[in-house]
């Protein structure tokens, strides 16, 4: 029997989602910053518009500042805060180094908030830290029973963003297979997810409801 309570399972799932969100958003912000400089100053507006968020800025640096620190609920620092909060709650289930790295990233952003002049180099170092966090998870075998929950969140988040931002069904279908395998691992009665709809909205609803509709309602 896997000794993980519903609350802890949910926190692990959301931690996976927020770490993945931090990673995807960091990559997107770096990429969009380049596009603002080279192609179209409105690229940042278009990016956030896909997520239903209104963003205005007067120069590329302000775009960075707002994406990283200022956007309520959608900033990078907000995703990192949430990842860390879930890590605090599930700390007794996490590899020590993984927790320390998440907390160190949180502290780095809290310090940067006080003097928020950040560069793309600085953001790239965030990616390295996120790589290390995932690496800690993959290298830890002792805490293996927790991994599927975190992975489930990670993949659900990646699918969500791939569909939402890139409208990439191919990437989503590639992840779908992994997600279904994890679902079976967590719950024998897991109902396999299929993505047949052509409506983006319907697909997103399915992906985001999957954890609560299958893993948890089975209890």
């Amino acid at each position: 029997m896997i000794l993980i309570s519903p609350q802890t399972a949910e926190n692990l799932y959301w931690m996976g989602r927020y770490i993945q969100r931090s990673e995807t958003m960091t990559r997107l912000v770096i990429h969009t910053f380049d596009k603002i400089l080279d192609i179209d100053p409105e690229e940042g507006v278009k990016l956030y518009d896909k997520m239903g968020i209104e963003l205005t800025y007067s120069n590329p640096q302000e775009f960075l500042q707002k994406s990283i620190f200022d956007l309520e609920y959608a900033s990078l620092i907000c995703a990192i805060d949430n990842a860390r909060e879930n890590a605090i709650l599930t700390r007794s289930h996490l590899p020590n180094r993984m927790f320390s790295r998440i907390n160190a990233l949180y502290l780095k952003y809290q310090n940067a908030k006080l003097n928020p002049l950040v560069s793309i180099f600085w953001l790239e170092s965030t990616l390295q830290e996120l790589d290390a966090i995932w690496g800690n998870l993959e290298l830890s075998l002792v805490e293996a029973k927790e991994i599927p929950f975190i992975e489930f969140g990670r993949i659900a988040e990646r699918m969500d963003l791939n569909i939402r931002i890139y409208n990439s069904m191919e990437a989503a279908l590639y992840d779908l297979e992994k997600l279904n395998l994890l679902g079976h691992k967590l719950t024998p009665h897991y109902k396999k997810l299929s993505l047949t709809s052509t409506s983006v909205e319907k697909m997103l609803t399915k992906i985001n409801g999957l954890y609560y509709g299958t893993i948890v309602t089975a209890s």
Partner: protein
Amino acid sequence: MVESQSPLYDGFKEILKNIDPQRVKDVLSYMRTEAINFNLFKNGTFIERKFPFDVIPRIVSADEFAYLDKGIQQRIYALNLFLEDIYSSQKILKDGIIPSEFVFSSKAFLPAFMNTPVSKNIRVHISGIDLVKNSVGDSWVVLEDNLRVPSGVSYPLSLRMLTRKVFPEFFEKLPIASVLDYPELLLKTMNHVNTGGINVVLTPGRYNSAFYEHSYLAKQSGAILATGEDLVVEKDHLYLKTYNGKRAKVGAVYRRLDDDALDPIEFHPDSLIGVPNISQVYRAGNVGLMNSIGNGIADDKGIYYFVPDMIRYYMNEEPILQNAPTYLAFFEKDRQHILQNMRTLVIKDVAEAGGYGVVFGCNLTKSERQNLKDAIIAEPRRFIAQEVIEFYDIECLAENGDFFPRKADLRMYSLFGEDITVWPGGLTRFTMDPDSYIVNSSQGGGFKDTWVLKDKR
């Protein structure tokens, strides 16, 4: 008087003076990265804060530890017998050693748990005994027995893990007793009273000041960290709910919440952090609960006065450790002494904890003193008074490398399983304010590690 200026600290200081101050900063930074926090609630706001600490340890010699070890074992043994007695035949009251009304008037005495047998007759599984070292006479004095949910052990333990990494030379050159087996001792203690099932650390949750500790102890001991909503009672048995609907039977609970909050059916109905009906499981003998329900009567600040008498009564021995000279306002003669000598005494409200309700008579204005006198006359059971003890300072290390002294106490932990084990370490708490005697963490005090030296003989 500064204890750390004694020869006992010479070896430590000799090594310290050759250490690059940058390494001290490494310790600070690591503690931050690890989020070793002791959180506070101030004016209704949750403040996540690191527990201030200092790298200079308290050092306890092998002989001193041997003495404290014997004294604490004796004290815990007697307190456990007292609890067994008070919740059954109450011989100590019948024999007039402690006035019955003194026990019965305490809110911490829970008659609803009379004659409830506990696993292996152990009630005081984990205790924290607060001591100070009196600079007058150079002797240890017990200030308090904490037998409900004493916190703090994880902090010196975490600091020890870290100092071993950053300053290995201390551990190579000085004969420092290892403390790293605490989680193992905790596990053994849980296993000893386990009635069949998994071990659980029950936490009030994320917003409790010691949540770091709960999480740390669960992880290190292999127990499951659970909140009240993770547990459920079915047919007088306790279960952990799992995400997929299955239930895992719980055999032992190291609970980190007070009796009041433990069970909304039995105690405070507004408690959202407890487990409904867990008291029934306990009554039925189907779970080992650490510490037992109702222990508050034994660490009531008034009952503390009678601990030396308990040792004589139950064990027919003289107490090894001394109490601070204490007066009970409950007794007419003592009350008069308190009222007449208030300026020289420290007065404690027995209902308070964490350094709250402690008043130094010399710091009161005339009207405050009068108000307190009126309160003592109106509710004598509520107050005790103690002689002010000039306990030692221990030096702390300033950023510029200077030393500065602060008053410091010592909380020593013991675990009662097959035997009573006094942990060869402890939480040394120090005051932030140079003029203060209040070391409690909830009052902003800091902490140090405690190094017990091994006997070289």
